[in-house]
């Protein structure tokens, strides 16, 4: 009854081969345009960053030091590139009490909405019945609702940027397994997992303006260079972006 059930399920799942994640995908809301150098203020909420390794059997092994380093690097890279795009990045103020609860609700909501976009609009075929028509007509219409205007710091900014990163670097054991599985029975074992998604939300209407999701991101966020590559990839289809797409390929 107490603790453990989730762990057991996770244990059972970790051997299921993760389907080779689909290509990166991004979308911009049809009625949204952002000219480069428009000097918008972008509020960034506590980015979700998790860095660790992948055990031989495929379990995620969190690493606190890597996570801390990646968080700092990503923040710095983000400021650098948004400056290049002509936008200013504002770090969201630390929230307390009611504000913190409201923010947490919206962080969860953003997570749920972007997962729905990724699952039902971007990648697989199981379309939501209510979104079938949108998908055919290439309409990107998702919203968090106007309540985002009350989020802490929202008054001083135009948009909110949510960022999610999860990196699991293949351990030595995993890499050896990968090679032996390839040369032996010829089985493809995936070593490492690098997911990222970023979304831009209009702080007045709550509309999701842009979302970029990638199941196989490049760049090692533990390093300064790598984080810059990562953020460049996350932002490469950002509206008004002049970041060179080919530089990373």
């Amino acid at each position, binding site marked *: *009854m*107490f*603790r*453990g*059930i989730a*762990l*057991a399920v*996770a*244990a*059972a799942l*970790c*051997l299921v081969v993760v389907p080779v994640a689909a290509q990166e995908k991004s979308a911009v809301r049809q009625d949204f345009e952002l000219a480069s150098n428009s000097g918008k203020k972008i509020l960034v909420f506590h980015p979700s960053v*998790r860095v*660790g390794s992948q*055990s*031989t*059997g*495929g*379990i995620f*092994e*969190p*690493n*606190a*030091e890597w*996570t801390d380093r990646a968080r700092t690097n990503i923040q710095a890279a983000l400021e650098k590139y948004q400056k290049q795009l002509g936008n200013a990045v504002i770090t969201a103020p630390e*929230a307390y009490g009611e504000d*913190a*609860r409201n*923010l*947490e*609700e919206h*962080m*969860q909501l953003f997570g749920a909405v972007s997962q729905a976009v990724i699952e039902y609009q971007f990648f697989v075929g199981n379309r939501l019945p209510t979104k079938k028509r949108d998908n055919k007509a290439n309409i990107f219409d998702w919203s968090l609702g106007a309540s985002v205007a009350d989020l802490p710091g929202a008054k001083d900014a135009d948009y909110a940027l949510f960022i999610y990163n999860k990196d699991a670097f293949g351990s030595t*054991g995993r890499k050896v*397994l990968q090679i*032996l*599985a390839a040369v*032996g*029975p010829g*089985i493809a074992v995936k070593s490492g997992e690098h997911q990222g998604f970023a979304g831009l939300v209009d702080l007045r209407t709550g509309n999701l303006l842009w979302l970029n999701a990638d199941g196989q991101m490049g760049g090692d966020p533990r390093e300064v260079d790598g984080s810059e590559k990562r953020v460049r990839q996350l932002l490469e289809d950002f509206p008004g972006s002049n970041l060179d797409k080919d530089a990373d390929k």
Partner: protein
Amino acid sequence: MRRAGAMVAGALAAVLAGPAMAEVAPPPPPYVGAYQPQGVDEIGLWREFDESERRLAASELVIRDEKLNAYVRHVLCDTVGTDRCKAVRVYIMREPTFNANMSSNGTMRVFSGLLLRMRSEAELGAILGHEFGHYEQRHGLKLFKARRTGTDLLAWSALLASMAPSYNVRRSYADVQLSVYGNLFRYSRDNEREADRLGVGYLNTSKLRPQAASAVWQNLMAEIEASSRSKGLSKPRFNAIAFTASHPPEGERALTMAALADPDGASRDDGADRYREAMAHWLPIFLDDQIKLNDFGASDYLIQSLAASGWTAPLWFARGELYRLRGQQRDLVNAAEFYESAIRLDTALADAHRGLGLSLIKTGRPTDGQAALRKYLELKPEASDAAMIRMMLTKEGVTN
């Protein structure tokens, strides 16, 4: 022949009596003080739990009633001692199931469904002590490492098995897989047993009555039985261990805890009155959540066992709601009776008048029903459903 029979009987008796023969739980080991995680794995896990606690602290599910929080913390400190309880942050969650858990970084989550089911401070202390035992023994880290070792082994054996794909190899791979998973689940159950032992150990050295630990599981078994009975299911088995069970069976836990409890502690106070008093404000809310789980047998069992120390207006009201929401004609007659009992004890209980009115209207007594509904509106004119209730008053041709 006869000897073999005697041996089987002896072995069986040993198995059955095994847990009951456990010795009284030893007092807890000396406390090491503020513990900090060590090594990449533990520091990494703690960081994950710190992040999740960050979200938890801002969650809408957390009950922030200062008095209730202080009380639960007080029971924890009474059980494990003031030095140990400093390491813990307690979060009471509005979640009507019987559960509590503890993360490696000292985050304790106590579900409201647990608070509803406890009868005394000692029972609550037994659970909180159990959870603290997981923390003190660093079970989270140990289980993580066990899972990693097990799945690593499986990855290698899957590779080897696929190099020689024959029926026998595949079969032995399946055996390895079963034994690895079986071992992991057994490992988890053994951790639970260790935490149980520690939990009773804390209680033994506290001021509270350690025998309460066993009562928790006896009550739970009775509730599960009541639930299955009302669903028409067969009688649950409380001594069987399922392959994938993360915890020992309830029967075993009840027996073991009874044996672990220090007999000298049997005469101690279990704090039942204090517990009832502390929960009084929240009881109707927790009962309401429980009723909405739509588990008639379990809810009725809980209400009746709460009423063992005397029926109160909130208990009669909860029983009325339970019956009215199931909503058979016979239930409505009973519900009306329960609401009336609630009103007899507390005429100002507005929702009881509402429930009574709605039940009476459906059982063919519209005039009495409308009178009750009018009383409801009189007591609670700002009720969120006032407009709808008013419609019910005029529809039947009776105006107010």
